[in-house]
């Protein structure tokens, strides 16, 4: 446990070291956030509400998804894949925790910095440009925190799982890029899922992707209420369990194929 705590602390510090990169990243996120907000305003064209999403909520949606890019590593990560190719995985396997927990710990520290630093700062900056709605009641904030943690767990498990493809192929970058594209699109990062056609959202609601972004944003906006809210949270938990289970199984199969060439 102490090891894990040290690991989280280290990755937290490591991430915090790049402060200029943090600000530069913020400015870029902000520019693209404004572009996407502008497009939505033009699309709404004066309509107050489209499929249960008001323009203000849609603008907050854009802000929140931009704020979550770094927290959820929405553009993907190939770090784990690279350790398999460089052989660095050899030393990681000697660590006194399971491989999954080891990467979970590293990702937790990194994510935490990006949620507290980059995410919150982004929302402050973004709110200078566009109105951002805020959850009013304390329970809403509590449920939101829960949903955000679950979103991170689902997102992490997905990234971990597909990075394992590196056990089977000498160049998994193409596979990873496709997988990250799918998760960006189906999670609601590119467009709010409610604005996509009903047949489309009906199709992707049976995938883990909405649990990565869309659920947490809708919890924040308060568009998920009552029973549907709890179902959505349960679904997040179930998808985490399914993906983590799958990842464990794939890891067991993959690790037997691992050959590390000398040192």
């Amino acid at each position, binding site marked *: 446990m102490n090891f894990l705590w040290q690991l989280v602390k280290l990755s937290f510090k490591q991430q915090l070291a790049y402060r200029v990169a943090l600000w530069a990243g913020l400015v*870029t996120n902000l520019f693209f956030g404004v572009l996407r907000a502008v497009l939505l305003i033009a699309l709404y064209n004066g309509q107050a509400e489209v499929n249960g999403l008001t323009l203000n909520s849609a603008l907050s949606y854009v802000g929140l998804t931009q704020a979550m890019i770094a927290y959820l590593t929405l553009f993907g990560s190939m770090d784990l894949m690279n350790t398999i190719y460089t052989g660095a995985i050899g030393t990681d396997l000697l660590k006194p925790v399971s491989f999954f927990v080891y990467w979970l710990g590293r990702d937790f520290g990194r994510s935490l910095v990006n949620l507290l630093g980059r995410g919150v700062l982004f929302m402050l900056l973004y709110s200078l440009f566009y109105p951002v709605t805020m959850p009013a009641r304390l329970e809403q904030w509590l449920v939101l925190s829960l949903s955000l943690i679950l979103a991170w767990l689902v997102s992490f498990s997905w990234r971990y799982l597909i990075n394992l493809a590196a056990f089977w192929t000498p160049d998994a970058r193409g596979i990873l890029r496709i997988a990250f594209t799918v998760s960006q699109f189906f999670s609601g990062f590119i467009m709010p899922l409610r604005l996509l056609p009903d047949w489309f959202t009906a199709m992707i609601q049976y995938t883990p992707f909405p649990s990565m972004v869309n659920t947490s944003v809708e919890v924040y906006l308060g568009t998920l209420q009552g029973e549907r809210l709890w179902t959505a949270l349960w679904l997040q938990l179930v998808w985490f369990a399914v993906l983590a289970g799958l990842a464990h199984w794939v890891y067991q199969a993959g690790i037997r194929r691992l050959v590390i060439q000398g040192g």
Partner: protein
Amino acid sequence: MSRLWGLYIRLIGIQIRSQLQYRVSFLMELLSTGLLNGTYFLALVLIFERFKSVAGWTLGEVAFLAGLIEMSFASMDMIFSGFDPDSFSTKIRSGTLDQMLLRPLPIALQVLGSRWELRRMGRILEGLVIFGVALNLSPVNWTVGKMIYLPVVFLSQVLAFGALFIMGSTLTFWTVQPVEAVNILTYGGNELMTYPATIYPIWLQRFFTYAVPFIFLNYYPALYFLDKPDLLGLTPLAPFLAPLAAAAMMTIAVLFWRFGVDHYQSTGS
């Protein structure tokens, strides 16, 4: 001159042959590059089921903007790979640029010949598909003038983006690390030019008219091709300023690049 050209072709040839060594891996990269960028347009197509138009532009008309800019950005991204600030800055950090400076050949030629990302073809094809969709959904009334002007606009866009890459790389002579703000102009510019200029707030429109003349590169030419009226009320010549805007940007880029090379100090690695 023809010797240099021959050399350039050879350098590029080496790049292409080495990238084609791993066929399956290359095909995957091609496919993923196309898909990755195509998703954004796909999302737009889907969202048009609910909204029908944006600022008076139909899906086909927006696809014209999107397809054209996608093709030219991707072509630039392939041709000017060596000047991609991300890869150029590693040349500075690792000292590869110092080696290049020692050779009796133009430095720009060596940089251009040092990299040719063939997988960008995936994105060019994706742009071509979108452009095909555009021509299908809202056919252009072709005239001789339009047929001659289309390749001119395409080349202008390639050169304008290339100018931004060169300027972004030149900045790294001083900063060593790539400057993130440059991405706003390159990748952001590509995104910005995907939609009709009238959707943007006035301050953004002004910036991309007078500071960085993006508005003349895609939006105004598209008005001419699609026979749409100019709602911003600039000069009637505005659709034909694309080559001028590109030439101006490239001239500034080349002058800045020369200044940068003259003042270059090695990082010592």
